[in-house]
């Protein structure tokens, strides 16, 4: 048995270089996360705050030529302990003069080879991902059954085709696809969105990964199927005990499924703690962004009065010109005169408030 978190992300930075703007797009800018074994980490946050890019970085799917990844992603499962970003730095050279990045050199082929070498036997086997758009991520010409069977034979110890097929049927049943024997022979486009989503989940689970990344698994599904998928994930958590990284905009889904929640904004984590604390509006030590986010959820009163919703004022963050100081200070409503100067000029650290609750805000520095 290994101890400690299954996945540790330390100071992850994923930048894209935009040649036309001569600047870095700092999609992920210093993310620290941990996921413990058997737990679910929910990630919420502004759209464009780098949630998907974080997930893609973990999967080693950032290959767009000018992308740069720095930091540490440590995966420690029973069979593998590895820094997934090992040696990637060697393939990038950055020329700076007078504080500006003048040029980036990247050995794309070497970079890709290195990623493939590191991720060999990890992608799909140790980590698998539920993509947001299942129809795009599954091969449209192959039946879902044989896709799952292939994945089982590739990634697990089952190498016998008929056994693998049995296993595939088991997983199709697990995700509550009715008459799995019939659906086994369906092509992805013969399934409705919700079915396809579930087939995708079955495929991701069939390789029995140590870590499951689910990027918005419920968007675009109607309420009944949404609740089915939520039930399924909850059930899997209690029975199989998969470690999950769950990205979603639906706070209710996150609340239902996660143990820990990370709130992302502008490429960094602003708050990280137990789900019940982070997502309850009443909790005392709350990051101002989280508070504002929770306030934007339509509540019973809004619905009854058909009134306006409360949105966070101000502009969304510009990932090229991230403001100095606290990233959120332009829009922060809880800023006080006492800390104003600090908020505008210095970036706070992710500070421990209690045992496992961290907040990145100057408000909680003095106490």
């Amino acid at each position, binding site marked *: 048995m290994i101890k400690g978190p299954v996945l540790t992300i330390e100071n992850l930075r994923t930048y894209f270089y935009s040649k036309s703007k001569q600047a870095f797009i700092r999609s992920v800018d210093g993310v620290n996360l941990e996921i413990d074994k058997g737990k679910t980490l929910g990630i919420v946050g502004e759209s464009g705050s780098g949630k998907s890019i974080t997930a893609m970085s973990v999967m080693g799917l950032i290959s767009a030529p000018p992308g740069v990844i720095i930091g540490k992603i440590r995966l420690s499962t029973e069979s593998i302990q590895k820094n997934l970003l090992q040696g990637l730095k060697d393939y990038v050279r950055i020329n700076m003069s007078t504080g500006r990045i003048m040029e980036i050199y990247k050995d794309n082929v070497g970079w890709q080879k290195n990623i493939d070498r590191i991720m060999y036997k990890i992608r799909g086997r140790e980590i698998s991902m539920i993509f947001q758009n299942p129809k795009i991520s599954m091969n449209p010409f192959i039946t879902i059954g044989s896709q799952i069977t292939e994945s089982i034979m590739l990634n697990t110890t089952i190498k016998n085709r008929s056994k693998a097929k049995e296993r595939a049927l088991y997983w199709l049943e697990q995700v509550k696809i009715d008459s799995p024997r019939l659906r086994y022979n369906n092509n992805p486009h013969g399934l409705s969105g919700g079915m396809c989503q579930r087939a995708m989940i079955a495929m991701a689970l069939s390789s029995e990964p140590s870590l499951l990344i689910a990027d918005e698994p419920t968007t675009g599904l109607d309420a009944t199927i949404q609740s089915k998928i939520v039930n399924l994930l909850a059930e899997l958590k209690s029975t199989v005990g998969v470690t999950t990284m769950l990205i979603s905009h639906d706070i209710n889904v996150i609340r239902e499924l996660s143990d820990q929640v990370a709130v992302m904004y502008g490429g960094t984590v602003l708050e990280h703690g137990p789900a019940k604390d982070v997502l309850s509006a009443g909790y005392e030590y709350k990051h101002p962004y989280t508070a504002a986010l929770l306030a*934007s959820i339509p509540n019973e009163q809004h619905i009854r009065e058909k009134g306006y919703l409360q949105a966070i004022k101000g502009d969304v963050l*510009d990932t*090229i010109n991230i403001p100095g100081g606290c990233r959120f200070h332009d829009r922060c409503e809880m800023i006080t005169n006492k800390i104003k100067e600090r908020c505008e000029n210095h970036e706070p650290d992710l500070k421990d408030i209690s045992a496992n609750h961290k907040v990145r805000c100057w408000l909680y520095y003095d106490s």
Partner: protein
Amino acid sequence: MAKTILEVENLKKYYIQPGGIFTPFKGAKRIIPAVDDVSFYIKENETMGLVGETGCGKTTIGRTLLKLTPVTAGRIIFDEKDITQLTPHEFLPFRRQVQMIFQDLDAALNPKMRIRSILKEALTVHHRLSDAEINREIGELLEKVNLKKSKLSNFPGELSGGEKRRVGIARALAVGARFLVADEPTSALDVSIQAQVVNLLKDLQKNLGLSYLFISHDLRIVELISHKVAVMYLGQIVEMGMAGRIAHEPRHPYTSILWSSLVEKKSRETTKVSTDSKKGTWGVFDFERPHTGCRFAPRCPVYEAKGKPSICNEPSKAPQLQDIGDAHKVRCHFPL
């Protein structure tokens, strides 16, 4: 009394899919009744919400309203004119009036065009504008949807899901339409921007008197923004009425199941019908062989509870959309 801006009468849209390679010999074609006999009307300044299971034909209705796909039968009367009869050329003036926010954000933006050209194009389709005006208008649009100027020179592939969605909304707003089909405009957005979009739509309605057909899976938002709501099942409207009543006093079993499966409610709410989501009975419906009689019967808890009455199976006695008072219509033999 507000004027009726859009009236849909007995709209039908059947997709015909060629079957396998042997179809020519068998002569059998697969017919998918994506929209089957749908009627509704929308007044000026009014929002109609449209909800339903994935694949029940919501987007298809939206597409027929914009004449993006020919209808099989039925009439769509926009501003007292039947647009199903118009040639594409005659329809051109209507394109200014009706716009759509597309559901599939990856596909609806030309991948090879920068965001700036996409918006510029939408602004200049119907109006001649100088460069300065275009820049000003683009600035205003970006402000409305809260998108950063620096994203203008990006290609759609380089944006996050929510950013693409906002470009889609900005493009639909650029034309200045009076009627907007909003196909899941709030999915893939964080709650704050979702709130902004909802507020924006409400504002536009208040200031410019727009009407919306609001398609969404987010029932809370639908309830909040819509005046009336139509619930679809398998190509048909099964219930239609005022938003509050649909949400709180549903009469059709499907509506009841839909609202009770809201994730937040699940733990505390007790509904009139049990959803029984643990059992694997909630299969996916088969469009090719819809159940004769009431299409919802195979999944219907009431049908189960009443001991499978034969009236629900009889093709000749398929339930009709009947008015049960207060502009509330239900398609069910045994409304709750």
